[in-house]
């Protein structure tokens, strides 16, 4: 089910009412929310709902198996085996086709028969997200950070519909305790939830759709037909499109969870104000960043084993982070680009410290760093968005070309500038606005929200495209 649809609005109203009615009866609530989450999931495509149940069961059984031994070596082996079991469905559904195709071409170039049949496997939506959550659950149990939960709790944790399709990637220690205890029916943060949901819908339906259709899709679809300025603005526009699209999903997910009494971690923190690529990853898809850090980078040795090993660990982490987004060489390049950028940034920082150069932080220097970082991130987005590496270079090659500027319209420029400018706005006015909204009575709140939704409905274009991160 897509968030920005009438179907979901009705679904949410029904689930909200029943969820709070069943809230004091925890077992009944869990079964109800599990059923509702599967309906939400299967609404899109019912064929692979069983996979979610399978992964949930593997995660639950694995955690039980791991917990049964206190022998550290055995525990470690069991954890590795469990992680491998959880990765198998992801490997099959997401990466088999890519792997088999590349292997077939490599074998044929050597005059040998391809070893694996070519298959195009249907990708279940949300599999990357719920697989990573399942892995974190088993590893957290193995690290004694959380205790094994019942099958029902684990299933609700993984299937809880607000985060199911595209995150945030919530940890067991964050969500399972909330699942177990009744939520406080008298303290719903409706103000923040409302702003997140309506704001998210606006970003998705109005901003993302507008820029995608007006400039991004035409330019990335046929870069040879566009001049340098159009290409440059299309690249900046794509940076806004992917931010508006993905952060919209996270905002709506967090807002919906709040309405049901649940707190999710934040997923974005003004990413285009970052002063370095490392800083960018502290602000962009924050729940994926911390997953990669805690379950990959640190287990690899982190920064504890010398500079070279640290650099290797960063590269491995970012390459896998890139591949997590999709089975394609463009994602590998994108991950490598961010990894290399962080390694170089780290090396520059160490060198400055070794030379005793104090890092100044004047407003000008910060502005320069932000400008450079934003443009580096945009350079990375070219590979992320392009159909192939060749196509990415073709787009970059067009930056110096002359040509039409028909797509560089005032509305496109204003939207990009507005969205970038919004990242620098102080938080206080928005917080005060939320507080003021919170003082309204329930009917007035509803009326104000209706006007907001109506504005989004009329300003948005025809239909709603799926969120970009649905593919991941």
């Amino acid at each position, binding site marked *: 089910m897509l968030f920005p649809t009438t179907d979901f609005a*009705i679904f949410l*109203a029904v689930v*909200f009412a029943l969820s709070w009615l069943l*809230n004091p009866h925890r077992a009944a609530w869990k079964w109800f929310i599990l059923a509702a989450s599967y309906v939400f999931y299967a609404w899109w495509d019912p064929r692979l709902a069983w996979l979610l149940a399978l992964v949930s069961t593997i995660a639950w059984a694995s955690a039980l198996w791991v917990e049964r031994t206190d022998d550290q070596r055995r525990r470690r082996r069991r954890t590795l085996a469990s992680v491998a079991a959880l990765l198998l469905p992801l490997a099959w559904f997401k990466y088999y*086709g890519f792997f088999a195709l590349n292997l077939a071409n490599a074998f*044929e170039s050597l005059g040998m028969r391809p070893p694996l049949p*070519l298959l*195009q496997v249907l990708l279940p939506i949300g599999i990357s997200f719920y697989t990573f959550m399942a892995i974190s659950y088993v590893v957290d149990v193995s690290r004694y950070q959380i205790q094994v939960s019942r099958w029902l709790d684990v299933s609700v944790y993984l299937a809880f519909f607000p985060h199911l399709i595209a995150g*945030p990637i919530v940890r067991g220690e964050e969500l399972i305790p909330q699942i177990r205890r009744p939520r406080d029916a*008298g*303290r*719903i*943060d*409706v*103000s*923040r939830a409302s702003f997140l949901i309506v704001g998210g819908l606006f970003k998705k339906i109005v901003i993302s759709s507008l820029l995608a259709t007006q400039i991004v*899709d*035409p330019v990335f*679809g*046929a*870069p*040879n037909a566009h001049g340098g300025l159009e290409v440059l603005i299309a690249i900046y526009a794509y940076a806004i499109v992917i931010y508006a699209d993905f952060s919209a999903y996270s905002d709506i997910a967090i807002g919906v969870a709040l309405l049901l009494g649940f707190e*999710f*971690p*934040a997923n974005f*923190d003004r990413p285009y104000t970052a002063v370095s690529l*490392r800083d960018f990853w*502290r*602000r962009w898809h924050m729940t994926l*960043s*911390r997953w990669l*850090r805690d379950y990959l*980078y640190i287990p690899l040795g982190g*920064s*504890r084993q010398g500079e070279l090993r640290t650099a290797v660990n*960063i590269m491995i982490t970012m390459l896998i982070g890139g591949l997590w987004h999709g089975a394609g060489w463009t994602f590998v390049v994108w991950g490598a680009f961010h990894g290399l950028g962080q390694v170089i940034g*780290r090396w520059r920082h*160490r060198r400055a410290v070794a030379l005793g150069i104090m890092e100044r932080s004047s407003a000008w220097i910060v502005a320069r760093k932000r400008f450079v970082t934003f443009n580096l991130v945009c350079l990375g987005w070219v590979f992320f968005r392009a*159909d*192939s590496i060749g*196509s990415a270079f073709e787009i970059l090659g067009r930056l110096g070309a002359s*040509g039409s500027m028909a797509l560089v319209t005032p509305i496109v420029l204003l939207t990009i500038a507005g969205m970038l400018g919004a990242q620098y706005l102080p938080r206080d006015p928005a*917080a005060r606005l*939320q*507080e003021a909204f*919170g*003082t309204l009575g*329930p*009917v007035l*709140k*509803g009326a104000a*929200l*209706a*006007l907001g*939704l*109506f504005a989004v*409905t*009329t*300003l948005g274009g*025809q239909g709603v495209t799926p969120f970009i991160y649905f593919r991941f």
Partner: protein
Amino acid sequence: MTQTLERVVVAREARAPEPTGAPRASARDVFVTILVCLSLWALLAAPLLERNARAGPVGTRRSAALALLRPLVAISDTLFLSRATRSVERALGRDPEAAPGGELALPAFDLPAEEFESARVPPGPSAGSDPTTAEPSARADEEDQPAEVPPAPSPIRTPSPSNKLRVAVIGDSLSQGLGPAIERWMNPGVVRVLSLGRPSTGLSREDYFNWRSGMRLIVEEFRPDLVFVMLGSNDAQAQISRDGAAIPVGSADWVEGYRERAAELLREATRAGTHVVWVGIPIVKERERWNFYRRVNDIYRDTANADPFGTFVDSWEPFEARDGGYTAFVRNERGGLVEVRAPDGVHFTSTGYGFLGKMAIRAADEAFGMPKKAVSFHV
């Protein structure tokens, strides 16, 4: 001194956002808020929702939605809310009375006016009476006349940087992928391509989006030299006639009506001297759709080949597996295996659209003769 990656990230842990100081509400109050919000929004947006519901495929869901929405629209009218909604739509430059799929709006095309006026090769069939300048009433009369038989088409004219070839790509979501592919294979120095595909459109549901009107607008405003048409993948549904009656898919009336719509769509372009390449529906993964798609492909083939300004290109057989089944992989010109079909089993990957674009341009060359300088590959 140096902060490790983990320390830095721990310091800015992906934590729950700071709660605001806004007063909290009870579940009962929030439920009231949700109900008020959805009810008022439904009243405000009732005309839009009703239009969207009408656009759905004929069936239980559409009937139920319309049954629910009609009273809402009536209430909205009584409270003058629908009037406010229509005013907002007009203020945004939209026609509230337009079909649910909206109207075709041509993007800006940077052609000088004098070039535009002089660019047209005088079209054979309509040189005497230019349909693009005819009054609407005169055009309506003209539509009722039997179609003239166009003479043999002239080749596609040779463009120049100051007098570009005008190409339009229209149709459903398949054409939305074909458009950029055509644009990629054309030389932008001498060709202007407008990719005008609209998702969820076709010929069955002209009450949702009317491609015949769309083609008329394209011919009047853009005066294309060449149009690529690719649609039909959404057409396995009842046609809605002008009086609102549903004509079941597969019935004799449906086939006759569909054939007529296809022919009229083509005529809208060819009687102005525009060349048309009609790209057939490709083989798809779901075998249940094959019979329907083959039947409408036959209609497109017959229609396009009957007009000297039209030609049909088959996209079924080139994307078939050796055993006649569906495959997502084919070999490229260098013999390497490439993935050409999207995972949904209907659409193409960008590589696949590239192949399809080349096929369509080659078909245009075979049928009408493409100017060499207009194309960026060896035809």
